[in-house]
């Protein structure tokens, strides 16, 4: 891999990688079981530079921001490289947000350029807020020829001949603005520097290196910090290959493992559990003698790999299972959400290590990772090289808030000095997560201090972001909370949101009100929905500017009633 200490910015490191590994395949893109594209590093450069040149010719200046709203595909990475080549700042947005949310974050980030897939652009064009879009240049991928794009360009046509000028950036310059939340209330745009990314890449590849020949299956959205690092920057600076599958259909994901002999993949709990369910169903279908044989092979593998993984041995003992994953899989990487230890253990016992980690957008990609020496399903691993972690105000069990000091910690929140001051104190990032170190130096997580949940799909959901869907509800006031925030518990998983209702005087909880709440709830994507409600009989405490004092309200409710008061919606 490249020696990243030699580079001051992502653009320079990527540029060197494209030259150094020119003949290696860097990208494969498949639509279901049909391969659509295969690019070498040299091909990638040939496609990206005309785009960079066209951007330069369109008065794209260093520091100008480019938002990308796309599913995982080659044009995501090509566009990102062209932006870095021109010295620009990337704003990766979650393609699963609604058109209104996209428009809101485009306005907040002040993006000058937008790269967007056709179906997403079409949805934005139909949004009532579309007229106020301030983005100057919009590049739409895969738009049918002759379609009215409301002044946008077709990405495929936006290219110019001639070598663009490479713009070098310094380590402290901004590389990306990544939104960790805040579409409903207060957008949290994490401003991450080139140094943040270069340091993160160095520390991750020190433990889990890539090399030419490695094939990484990119399933998590590339706008997510994990895939941006391990599905783009990491593999590229090592000459490895990224496989994009343009569907998340489980059957095609399983097929891709085999077809492309995948080495690594990052997954959220929902996908890993889906794979587990599929495997368990297959095991259950086996004749009893085969099942007995399989169980004994699994037990033997578990005994022989107790201290560390031995992939070669596991492939011998459990060949059929490993062939089902392509035969070259080294590990499944997971993070971003709570993973059931039993699921991780299930895969480890089959000889497929699950590398569990912990991180947050504000601190780059990962802060801790399991080093598999030995595998531990009950922790999120040890701090990566260069990462200092502290437990603040530990209780009698050693559990307290996790704080981080690292070169991977973001510079600040975009346009929010107040929130930045609350979050980064004396150079330490306060994560809002509760944890402790066990005796071998592994971090164990026990819940959150902050009012948010993380879904099995790896989505961080902040209650304030979904409250607007209940605007106009015929009650005196309402607020959405994470259940854990009201009734703290020292464990993760099974997190849910609930609606706190304060009715008008003499108002009764009518069926029609509940039906209205349910109907509004259904307008939210499934992972953002509230699970229940509670009726509260006091006015909400508010600030002078009438904002709800959420912490005080949560404490009042938590003291007055327990969580059995929550009614399922």
């Amino acid at each position: 891999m490249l020696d990243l200490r030699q580079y001051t910015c992502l653009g320079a490191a990527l540029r060197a990688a494209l030259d150094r590994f020119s003949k290696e395949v860097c990208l494969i893109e498949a639509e279901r079981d049909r391969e659509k594209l295969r690019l070498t590093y040299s091909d990638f450069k040939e496609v990206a530079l005309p785009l960079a040149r066209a951007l330069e010719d369109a008065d794209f200046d260093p520091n100008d921001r480019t938002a990308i709203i796309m599913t995982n595909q080659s044009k995501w990475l090509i566009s990102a490289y062209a932006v870095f080549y021109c010295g620009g700042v990337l704003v990766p947005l979650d393609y699963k947000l609604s058109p209104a949310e996209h428009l809101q974050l485009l306005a907040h980030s002040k993006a000058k350029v937008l790269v967007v897939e056709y179906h997403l652009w079409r949805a934005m064009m139909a949004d009532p807020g579309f007229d106020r879009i301030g983005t100057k240049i919009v590049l739409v991928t895969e738009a049918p020829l002759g379609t009215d794009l409301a002044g946008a360009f077709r990405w495929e046509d936006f290219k110019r001949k001639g070598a663009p000028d490479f713009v070098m950036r310094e380590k402290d310059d901004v590389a990306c603005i990544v939104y960790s939340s805040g579409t409903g209330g207060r957008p949290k745009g994490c401003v991450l520097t080139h140094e943040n990314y270069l340091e993160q890449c160095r520390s991750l590849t020190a433990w889990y290196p890539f090399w030419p020949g490695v094939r990484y299956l990119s399933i998590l959205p590339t706008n997510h910090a994990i895939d941006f690092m391990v599905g783009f920057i990491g593999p590229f600076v090592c000459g490895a290959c990224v496989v994009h599958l343009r569907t998340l259909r489980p059957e095609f994901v399983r097929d891709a493992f085999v077809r492309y002999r995948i080495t690594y993949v990052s997954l959220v709990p929902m996908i890993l559990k889906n794979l587990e369910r599929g495997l368990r169903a297959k095991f259950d279908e086996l004749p009893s003698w085969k099942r007995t044989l399989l169980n004994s092979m699994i037990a033997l593998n578990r005994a022989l790999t107790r201290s560390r993984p031995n992939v070669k041995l596991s492939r011998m003992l459990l060949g059929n299972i490993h062939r089902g994953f392509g035969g070259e899989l080294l590990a499944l990487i997971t993070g971003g959400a709570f993973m059931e230890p039993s699921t991780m253990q299930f895969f480890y016992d089959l000889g497929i290590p699950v590398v569990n980690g912990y991180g947050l957008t504000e601190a780059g990609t990962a802060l801790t990772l399991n080093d598999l020496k030995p595998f531990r399903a009950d922790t999120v691993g040890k701090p990566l090289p260069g990462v200092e972690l502290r437990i603040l105000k530990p209780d009698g069990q050693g559990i307290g808030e996790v704080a981080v000091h690292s070169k991977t910690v973001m510079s600040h929140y975009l346009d929010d000095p107040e929130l930045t001051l609350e979050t980064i104190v004396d150079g330490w990032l306060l994560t809002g997560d509760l944890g402790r170190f066990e005796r071998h130096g592994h971090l164990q997580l026990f819940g959150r201090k902050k009012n948010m949940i993380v879904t099995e799909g790896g989505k961080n959901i902040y209650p304030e972001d979904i409250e607007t869907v209940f605007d106009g509800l015929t009650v005196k006031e309402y607020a959405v909370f994470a259940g854990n925030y009201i009734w703290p518990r020292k464990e993760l998983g099974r997190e849910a949101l609930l609606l706190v209702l304060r009715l008008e005087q003499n108002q009764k909880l009518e069926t029609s009100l509940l039906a209205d709440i349910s109907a509004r709830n259904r307008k939210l994507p499934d992972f953002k929905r509230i699970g229940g409600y509670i009726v509260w009989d006091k006015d909400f405490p508010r600030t002078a500017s009438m904002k709800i004092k959420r912490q005080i309200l949560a404490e009042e409710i938590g003291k007055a009633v327990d969580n059995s008061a929550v009614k399922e919606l």
Partner: protein
Amino acid sequence: MPTAEQTLDEILNLAAAHFKVPREKLSPDDDFFKTLGIDSLQTLDLLTKLENHFRVELPDYELQGVNDFRTLASKIQVRL
């Protein structure tokens, strides 16, 4: 070509069989995430079954925001 109502009915039959729930428990405007207790990946599994049955192909993004059988049926119907 089947009518929209026939398509909807077939989808309900297939969903009931796929997730092993009684057909009478499903109705067109049900929120299938809730009625069937499934996640978005399991929904994609169902979609694959429906595609094979109706011999159509729907991109994943077509399912974004769809949470009831009637809307799902309309997405399939326009491709028949």
